[in-house]
């Protein structure tokens, strides 16, 4: 079990895209509700981090880790929020998120005139490209005990 799931939010908190690979536990609520809960948590985490930080933050929140998973967070200056849950073997996977942004989101959503911004992404091309990309990442194939 390595990469669990992926969320993409826009700056207003709309869940643009959700995908999952090895998710074991469902949260017991609808996807929409879960998206809202996740966004609310990220929003609070962001304020929490900027206020508790002893110095001025630049990027702010990077990731958190529990006993079972790591939530990687990447926010673009335009407010898009990329979230990737992975297992705890490899803690920092921000570069994967950056690549998803620059190589997949920009290429197949921003450059696609049929994809409207601020709405859930329905493009099949984006879906397959993201899936391919995730399956190519080295941490996808690592199986932890």
């Amino acid at each position, binding site marked *: *079990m390595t990469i*669990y*799931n992926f969320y993409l939010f826009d700056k207003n908190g709309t869940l643009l895209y959700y995908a*999952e690979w*090895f*998710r*074991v*536990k469902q*949260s017991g609520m609808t996807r929409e509700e*879960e998206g809202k*809960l*996740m966004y*609310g*948590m990220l929003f*609070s*985490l962001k*304020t*929490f*981090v*900027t*206020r*508790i*930080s*002893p*110095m*001025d*933050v*630049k*990027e*702010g*929140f*990077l*990731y*958190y*880790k*529990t*006993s*079972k*998973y790591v*939530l990687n967070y990447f926010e673009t200056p335009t407010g898009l929020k990329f979230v990737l*849950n992975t297992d705890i073997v490899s803690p920092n996977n921000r570069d994967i998120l950056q690549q998803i942004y620059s190589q997949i989101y920009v290429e197949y959503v921003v450059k696609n005139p049929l994809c409207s911004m601020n709405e859930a992404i329905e493009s099949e091309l984006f879906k397959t490209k993201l899936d391919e990309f995730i399956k190519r990442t080295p941490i996808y194939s690592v199986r932890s005990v």
Partner: protein
Amino acid sequence: MVIYGVYIVSKSGGLIFNHDHNIVKTEHLKTFKYPLDLKLEFENKKIVVNFGSKDGIQVGHVLLAVDKIPVSGRQLSDGRDVWEILEDPKNFPLSLTFGRPKMTTNEKIFLASMFYPLFAIASQLSPEPRSSGIKVLEADTFKLHCFQTLTGVKFITISEPHQTGMEPLLKKIYELYADYALKNPFYSLEMPIRCELFESNLQNLLEQVEKTGISNV
């Protein structure tokens, strides 16, 4: 190696102890001409930089002093209104001191109770069953470590991102808590910890860890 602070949060989410260890002071004194090249705004009873950054002054910094006279709210300590001073070109050049807002005790209590639901939601949104809450949270300027005891008390440290050995340190703080706070007959559970022995021992522990690392403690 730097540890910035230690927080203890009770089972019900209240802040029962906090200790600031290394306080990073950011203060920037600069002489300004009229008009100001920063955009200031009055919010939360503070004058905050809203736009523009130069010479270390950043968005989010608050105005601490005008010509070295401290500012409280939007008034100087001698009673003059800061806004009027800043708007009058005759007062310039002015030397203004900006810095990061200091955390008040109220704000710390607020932040501690904010961590509680984050901890719970992190475990609820887990893709794997039986996940704990947040154990480590990293930002670009600090790393937060949290250790929850079986009784639900949370020990939180804020340290430099590369500080290692925080888990044994948290266990050690737990030990101190058990020894000096819980065994104190004047300490009632869930209430703020005011035990001198606990505080001085914690202080010693942190200093020792910073000097020689956790392995020697």
